[in-house]
């Protein structure tokens, strides 16, 4: 009973900071204050009129799509090779692939900042995509690997015995079985990439900010208008809806904790 009460207090505390952005954003005044003065939707409409914010949101969307897409595409063959071949140094390769997860991201961000400067691609969008790709691959790889290692090889052998070629077997027998895992890998990698701030903070140019960096800058520099809480609330609602849909369809726990 005490445990239950404690858990519900935790639930309330987890939701409180997200809920509080709503009343603050519903103000008709230009500053952030609680309780809010006046009631108006102007700051929610303001999100769409704020060109810097919209451009940043689009950039974040593009970045997360590219990083998650590329991460999944290169992780699939890699997961098959790691799972099925008896190469020497297999464990070493697996460690290398998943190692970006084990070092603090600020160290990687700093290393890439200097590295891109050396390569002459500092503050480029392409560089940012590569950085996001590096942190996305370990996650996408582990998630895809869970699906690949759960495959029943006998189905593929049957397909081969019945005369199907390797490609036909892959697309008609193997692919349908790992489809859910691959979609889950893409969606969760997209979310992690969209929400990443540290890498973009170090690597994005001044005119090339991602949405979270743009929000960070306005909070940090000061003079933030209630458009930021409004955008925060919208992001929170999208995140919550995404969570419920994913939990009901493919299961959040299975994939997010996958491979631990």
């Amino acid at each position: 009973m005490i445990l239950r009460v404690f858990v519900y207090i935790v639930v309330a505390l987890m939701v409180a900071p997200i809920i509080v952005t709503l009343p603050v954003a519903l103000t008709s005044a230009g500053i952030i204050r609680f309780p809010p003065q006046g009631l108006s939707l102007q700051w929610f409409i303001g999100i769409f009129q704020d060109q810097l914010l919209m451009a940043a949101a689009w950039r974040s969307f593009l970045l997360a799509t590219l990083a998650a897409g590329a991460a999944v595409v290169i992780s699939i063959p890699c997961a098959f090779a790691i799972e099925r071949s008896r190469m020497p140094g297999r464990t070493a390769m697996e460690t290398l692939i998943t190692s970006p997860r084990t070092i603090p991201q600020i160290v990687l961000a700093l290393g890439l900042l200097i590295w891109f400067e050396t390569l002459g691609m500092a503050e480029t969008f392409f560089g940012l995509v590569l950085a996001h790709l590096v942190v996305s691959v370990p996650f996408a790889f582990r998630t895809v690997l869970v699906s690949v290692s759960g495959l029943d090889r006998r189905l593929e052998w049957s397909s081969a015995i019945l005369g199907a070629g390797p490609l036909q077997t892959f697309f008609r027998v193997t692919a349908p079985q790992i489809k859910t895992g691959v979609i889950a890998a893409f969606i969760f990698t997209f979310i992690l990439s969209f929400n990443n701030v540290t890498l973009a903070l170090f690597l994005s140019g001044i005119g090339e900010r991602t949405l979270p960096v743009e929000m960070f800058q306005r909070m940090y520099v000061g003079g933030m208008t209630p458009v930021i809480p409004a955008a925060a609330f919208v992001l929170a609602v999208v995140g919550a809806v995404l969570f419920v849909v994913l939990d009901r369809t493919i299961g959040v726990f299975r994939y997010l904790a996958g491979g631990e």
Partner: protein
Amino acid sequence: MDGTSGLRRVAPLLFIAPVIVLMAAFFALPVADLLSMSFQAKHPEAGAGGFSLVNYAKILGDLWYWQMLGNSLALGFCATLTSLAIGYAVAWRLTHCGGWERTLIALACLLPIFVNVIVGILGWYILMLPFGVIQQALDALGLIHGPLRWLRSFWALVGVLTYEHVPFAVLILAASLQNVPADKIAAARILGASGPRILWTVLLPLSMPGIVASSILVFSLSVSSYLVPILITGPRGQFIPISIYSYAAELLDWNMAGALAFILLVVVVVLTYLFIALSNRLTRRGEWSMV
């Protein structure tokens, strides 16, 4: 026959190649480059070789940086303890309920993963503002008088870091607690063990791998967090990540930034291994796989 066996040997390498090339070119090399930079002076003396310990000497010889390291470690320890304690209770409840209750708890406690860090920090910032929600509530209850000094404090930082990292603890601990066989707990209960005793002698040892894995993850995320300290305590907060960013982006001294980053990395790695070794000894078990 030779052709196909050759292909069989080469194919896995081709499959792995893109990922390995990516990791080598944009993970291993940049980190190695950073390490070598940290061993160079920003303004090397004329005629002197590239190798120099001047950055490390500057950091390790200055009490200011030791104090900063201490602050960061204290922050990491506190946030790990609170995240683990909260995460354990939530994870236990999650594995023992279903339906809408499970969805509600999971949604609330995993939300920071699905919603940007900035949103959570902004929310806490608004809640803790002077004359903000928490202050008005406590004032109304007559518990405090005058403005709160929480916003810029160490404990506000621990709170927000806990908020951001509880989800990771919940995920790992729930997976771990799910594997604890229910009949062992039932057996302990039948034999007359009390709640705390079951927790201490049955549940904790059986979920140790999850505790170790989540502590390592939460600790590493907490000590290396830049966003939470910079937004909650501001640029004056004495923490390693703030100093790294300041050297890299404001002072443009990448050599010092690199040295600080490696000290942070070494501290995290050493503490991780010490913790794994300690928990192995305590539970007299084999190795736990690392996160």
